[in-house]
């Protein structure tokens, strides 16, 4: 167990280092042209650009530039050049909104995703399965930002009704009730895609598992259908869902909900990156990308550990 942990942690650290290198390539090397100008964004003054060139070491050799970037990123000295604000501070400010969005939405999508998957699998081939399948596919096919815009307009802004408050994030400490009412619509909108997707994946897994020999064995022992479904079919069908969930959760936590946050004006981490895109202000995007990668790396490690717990075959002894 200990060696497994150590090995996995070393792997995670290596991936993190590789990620910084990829970020370096994406933002500084690959685009071509003057990196200083790019980092400074669209509205930069010439003086600004000269400062950046110097502080990022763009007149220095390649490895020095990389080193400078690492120092800036991990020293918390990444600075947005349009607003002159520290990137790390801004990310930390966005975290409550992003965490609220992720945790609420993920509970909804996991619950309904499993429900949808189980329902359509146990009625496979029948009408209810077809209906659920079509609904799930529609859910998967809707761009989340479009769904957000439309539901916000029709349900919150008064296009049809005003059941929900219109956008923005209210801190949970400020007013739990307001927080909840502001989050419900974003949660549902973000969850729709995942519900459809998890439902489809789980349905497939269950139908595969039902044909497994050990399920037939369970049946031949005279177990009740419910016990077979829960203890033998779901127990194994859910293992891949656990992996999927861990990684999706991490991605959304790491700024992957950029679209939902933007559409509902939640001022989360993802929206912070989005606000910088139109100014071509790269340091915030760089910061958020790194931040997102960090969560995915950490969570994929957790998922691996959990996976080993769920599947005794790969449990280290």
């Amino acid at each position, binding site marked *: 167990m200990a060696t497994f942990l150590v090995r996995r942690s070393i792997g995670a650290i290596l*991936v993190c280092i*590789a*990620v910084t290198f*990829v*970020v370096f390539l*994406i*933002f500084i090397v*690959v*685009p*071509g*042209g003057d990196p200083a100008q*790019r980092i400074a964004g669209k509205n930069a003054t010439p003086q600004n650009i000269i400062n950046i060139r110097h502080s990022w070491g763009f007149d220095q050799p390649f490895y020095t530039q990389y080193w400078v970037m690492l120092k800036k990123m991990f020293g918390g000295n990444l600075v947005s050049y349009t607003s002159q604000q520290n990137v790390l501070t801004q990310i930390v400010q966005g975290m409550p909104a992003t965490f609220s969005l992720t945790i609420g939405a993920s509970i909804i999508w996991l619950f309904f995703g499993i429900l949808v998957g189980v329902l359509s699998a146990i009625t*496979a*081939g029948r009408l209810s399965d077809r209906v659920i*399948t*079509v609904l799930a*596919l*529609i859910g*998967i*096919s*809707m*761009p*989340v*930002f*479009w769904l957000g*815009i*439309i539901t916000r*307009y029709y349900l919150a*802004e*008064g*296009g049809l009704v005003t059941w929900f408050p219109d956008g923005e994030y209210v801190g949970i400490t400020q007013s739990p009730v307001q927080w909840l009412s502001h989050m419900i619509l974003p949660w549902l909108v973000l969850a729709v895609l995942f519900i459809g997707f998890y439902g489809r994946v789980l349905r*497939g897994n269950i*139908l*595969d598992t039902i*044909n497994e020999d050990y399920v037939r064995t369970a049946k031949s022992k005279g177990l009740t259908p419910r016990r077979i479904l829960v203890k033998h079919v779901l127990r194994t069908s859910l293992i891949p869902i656990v992996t999927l969930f861990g*990684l999706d959760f991490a*991605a*959304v936590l*790491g*700024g*992957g909900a*950029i*679209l939902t946050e*933007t559409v509902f004006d939640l001022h989360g981490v*993802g929206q912070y*990156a*989005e606000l910088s*895109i*139109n100014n*071509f202000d*790269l340091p915030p*995007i*760089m910061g*958020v*990308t790194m931040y*997102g*990668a960090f969560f*995915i*790396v950490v969570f*994929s490690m957790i998922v691996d550990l959990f996976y080993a717990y769920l599947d005794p075959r790969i449990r280290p002894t």
Partner: protein
Amino acid sequence: MAQQAGETEFTLDTAAELASDEPASTIRGRSPWYLAWHRLRRNYVAFAFLVLFVVVLAACALAPVYASQVAHSGPNANHVLETVKVNGHEVSVVSAGGYIDKKTGKPCTVSGTGCELFSAIPIGPTWFSAGGKFVLGADANGRDVAVRLLYGGRSSLVVGIGSTAICVFFAVILALLSGYFGGWIDFVITRFFDLFYAFPVVLLGIALGSALAINGFHHFGINIESGSLWIPTLVISYVLVPYVGRPLRGQVLSLREKEFVEAAISQGASPMRVMFSELLPNITSSLLVFFTLIIANNIVLEAALSFLGAGVQPPTASWGTLIADGQNLIVTRPWLALAPGIAIVLTVLSLNVFGDGLRDALDPRAKIKIEH
């Protein structure tokens, strides 16, 4: 199964005998492709949605015809100062703004809570009452939305299909190399996949898209200008390679152990031959399914990137940028955002339903259970 002692021997004689006994069609029908086609043909829902996709394709391909013959406009033609005859009345394409009631979309006199100030208000959908002009209305720049919708569909489909083709191509090559050679090649390729799994897809796409949007890409003798459709196409294909490559590698890996591959190798077939004439044909059915579903996925991804400004760049229309334009006018002209969204949903849904049907047809395990 393979080691069962009742293993049978199929000679030409017995084949001929069997053929004379059974109707010819059932013998030929044993080919898995035939069976798949047979099953697909009965899946009317999947077919209906395939037709829908073809209709969307055709409509977008005919965008120039619609623009010149019906709407008498172009995708970027600006009609801000013009008027148009709707049911005999002259109406300006873009009227002066004012306070608008959010609920009703009608002008209101005071700036109460339900009112918002708009600088300019474009004409709404005319639904063919203006002789084909502004069928879906105009945008804030006085451009014909119906024309832009069709042209936008072209960009979205070109980026969606193009990025899928490129992505699947590279994913297949990597999967074959990795699965066939194993060893350090496999190690390097899987590490590469792992690395890109560490980024949230949308963020990575945005990072690349926005970094390349400024000066374009100028390396290795490749020059892509910043407004080009190639940028979103390549960005999307690049970020998805690991997601297609990893499952394919798994399939190649398990095929690699199969007897027919071992046999080909022991008979001295070159690696190229084994990869392309033994392994590749056996993953084509999953490729086909992947291809359909990835196009659907990429159309949505393109829309997301363009919506955020990291994909297709203005003034070029795409469904994503149209939704972004429409978002600002949603209170007065909801169709500006509704229409491109519905176009995306229909297109993507048609691909998803068809892809689903295709997978069921090619891999019918769920329906017919074969016990041994």
